[in-house]
C-alpha cells in the first residue's frame, strides 16, 4: 500500500446553480474551505491534483490551466486526471499515490464542475465514438435504463418490485439530503411523487435521476507523520481499487459489471474487509440513478446478485438500517460531475471522523466511497477508516 496516508481536511461549495460566480471563483470556494478545515495554508501544500469533465463541458479546455490561481497551484507541481464520472475518485487515488510514494507530504485534490454553463448531455454524447455508437446515443438516463433493464431481466426481478425498491431509494436519498447543507436538491419526496413523476426513459422517471449541478470539492491528503502532527482526527485511506472495461458497449456484461465488482474486491482486500455488509458503517455509493444503485449494491457484495431490491425493501440501506447508503443524499441529489466522486470520498471521511453534522451516522468508523465513469466503463472505490 505504500506509506500510510490520511485525509486531514475537506471542503465543499454550496452545490446547485451557481451563476453568482465565475468557475475559477467556485473552485477557490472549495479550496479555501478545505484549507480552513485542515488548519493549514497554501504554503503547506506540496502538490495539486485537479479533475473535471472533458473541456467540452464548459468550453474552456485545460481546466488545470484555468484554475491555476484558484486552486493555489502557482509554482507547484500539478496533475490533471479525467475519467468522466469517476474523476472525483481518480483524483483522490492520484493524491493518495503521490503521498504514499513519499514524494509529497501534503497534497491538495480538487474536483469541480459547472454544469449550468454547458450542455451536459451533448458533452457526454461525445464520449461515444462518431463511427458506430454516437448516432444511437440514448443519453445518460437512456444508457442506465438499458443497463437496469438488462439486470432486471437477467435476475427475473418483476417490474413492480424494481419500481418499488427504486422509489424507496429516491425517497431515502432525498430525505438524507435535507440534513446536508451542501446538497443541491433539498426537498422531501413521497413514494407516490417518485412513481408518478415525469417519465425520462421508461421506467426511469424524473425523481429517479440526478440533477445537473455546479459545485466543487477539495480534499487534503497528508503523510502519516504530518497527519499525526497537525490533525486531531485524520481519516485513513484503508484501501482503493479501480477497474475499467472495454469501450464498445455490448462487449461486457453490465448486469454483472466486473469492473465495479473487482474494484470493490481490490479495495476490500487492501482494507482487510471480508464481509462488507457487516463491517462497513457507511457506503457513499455513486448513485445518479436509483435503479442502477441496486446493481452497485450487488457488485459491492452487500447482497447476493438479483436480491438488491429485496434488501432495499427491508430498509437495509436507509439511515437507520444495517448499512446506511449515501446519508449525504448522494449523487442523486447533487451531481457536479468532476467533483462528485470526490464528494463521496469527502463525505466518507466526514463520517469516520465524526464531522458529518446532522447527517452523521453514529459510531461510523469504516466507510466506502465510489464513483463510476464513462458509459458504464470505469469504476473506482476508496475506503476510509478512523484507525490506521
Amino acid at each position, binding site marked *: 500500500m505504500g506509506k500510510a496516508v490520511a485525509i486531514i481536511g475537506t471542503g465543499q461549495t454550496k452545490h446547485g446553480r451557481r451563476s453568482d460566480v465565475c468557475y475559477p471563483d467556485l473552485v477557490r470556494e472549495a479550496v479555501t474551505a478545505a484549507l480552513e478545515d485542515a488548519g493549514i495554508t497554501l504554503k503547506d501544500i506540496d502538490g495539486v491534483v485537479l479533475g473535471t469533465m472533458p473541456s467540452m463541458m464548459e468550453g474552456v479546455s485545460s481546466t488545470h490551466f484555468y484554475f491555476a490561481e484558484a486552486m493555489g497551484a502557482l509554482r507547484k507541481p500539478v496533475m490533471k486526471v479525467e475519467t468522466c464520472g469517476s474523476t472525483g475518485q481518480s483524483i483522490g487515488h492520484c493524491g493518495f499515490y503521490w503521498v504514499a510514494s513519499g514524494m509529497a507530504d501534503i497534497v491538495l485534490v480538487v474536483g469541480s464542475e459547472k454544469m449550468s454553463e454547458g450542455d451536459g448531455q451533448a458533452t457526454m454524447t461525445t464520449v461515444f465514438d462518431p463511427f458506430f455508437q454516437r448516432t444511437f446515443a440514448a443519453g445518460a438516463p437512456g444508457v442506465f435504463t438499458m443497463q437496469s433493464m438488462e439486470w432486471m431481466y437477467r435476475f427475473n426481478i418483476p417490474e413492480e418490485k424494481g419500481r418499488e425498491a427504486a422509489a424507496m431509494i429516491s425517497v431515502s436519498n432525498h430525505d438524507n439530503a435535507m440534513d446536508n447543507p451542501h446538497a443541491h436538491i433539498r426537498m422531501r419526496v413521497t413514494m407516490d411523487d417518485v412513481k408518478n413523476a415525469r417519465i425520462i426513459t421508461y421506467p426511469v422517471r424524473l425523481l429517479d435521476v440526478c440533477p445537473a449541478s455546479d459545485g466543487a470539492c477539495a480534499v487534503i491528503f497528508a503523510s502519516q507523520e504530518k497527519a499525526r502532527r497537525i490533525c486531531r482526527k485524520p481519516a485513513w485511506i484503508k484501501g482503493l481499487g479501480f477497474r475499467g472495461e472495454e469501450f464498445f458497449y455490448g*462487449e461486457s456484461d453490465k448486469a454483472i459489471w466486473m469492473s465495479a465488482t473487482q474494484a470493490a474486491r481490490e479495495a476490500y482486500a487492501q482494507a482487510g474487509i471480508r464481509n462488507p455488509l457487516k463491517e462497513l458503517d457507511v457506503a457513499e455509493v455513486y448513485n445518479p440513478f436509483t435503479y442502477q444503485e441496486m446493481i452497485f449494491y450487488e457488485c459491492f457484495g452487500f447482497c447476493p446478485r438479483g436480491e438488491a431490491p429485496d434488501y432495499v425493501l427491508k430498509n437495509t440501506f436507509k439511515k437507520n438500517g444495517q448499512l446506511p447508503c449515501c446519508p449525504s443524499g448522494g449523487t442523486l441529489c447533487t451531481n457536479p460531475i468532476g467533483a462528485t466522486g470526490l464528494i463521496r470520498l469527502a463525505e466518507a471521511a466526514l463520517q469516520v471522523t465524526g464531522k458529518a453534522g446532522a447527517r452523521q451516522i453514529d459510531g461510523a468508523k469504516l466507510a466506502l466511497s465510489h464513483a463510476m465513469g464513462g458509459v458504464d466503463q470505469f469504476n473506482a472505490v476508496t475506503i476510509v477508516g478512523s484507525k490506521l
Partner: protein
Amino acid sequence: MTREEHRIVKGQVMVPYELALGRTWSNFYDYLKEEKIMGKKCRKCERVLVPPRSFCPRCFEDMDEWVEVSQEGVVETWVYVNMPFFAQEIKIPFISAQIRLDRSDSGFIHQIAGIDLSDFDRVRETVKLGGRVKAVWSKEKKGNILDIAYFEPVK
C-alpha cells in the same frame, strides 16, 4: 444577490474534426455497402466481434480473420428515448438497443424501428428483452453505420 448580478455570457464553440477510420473500420463500411455484416475473429479467444476491432480488447492480439455474421439476432437490452437533447442525430422518439447478432460474441448499439414508435405501450408489446430482430438496409449507402437503417422485430 439580485438577478442583475448574475451576468451570463452566451457563446458557442465549434470545432471541426477529420477522423481516420483505419483499415478495419474502412473495410467494415465497404462490406455494409454490399449488405454484408462482417465481424472479426480473435485467433486466441476465438470471439467474433461486431463492429470489428483491429485487435482483441481482451487478448491484445491483432484480429485478422473476417467472419460474416448473421443479419438476425437477439435484443440484449433496449430503451425508448423520447427526451430531446442537443446534438441528437436521430429524431425522437427512437429506440436505442444493444443487439447480439447470431454467430457473433458481442452485443453492439443500434436502433430498433420499422414499427409504430408513437405509442410506447404498443411498442412494449412488440419489443422485448430476449426478442429477435433483423437488419433492414438503407437503399442509399453512404458508408456509415446507418447503411443498416435499423433492426426490426421478427416474429
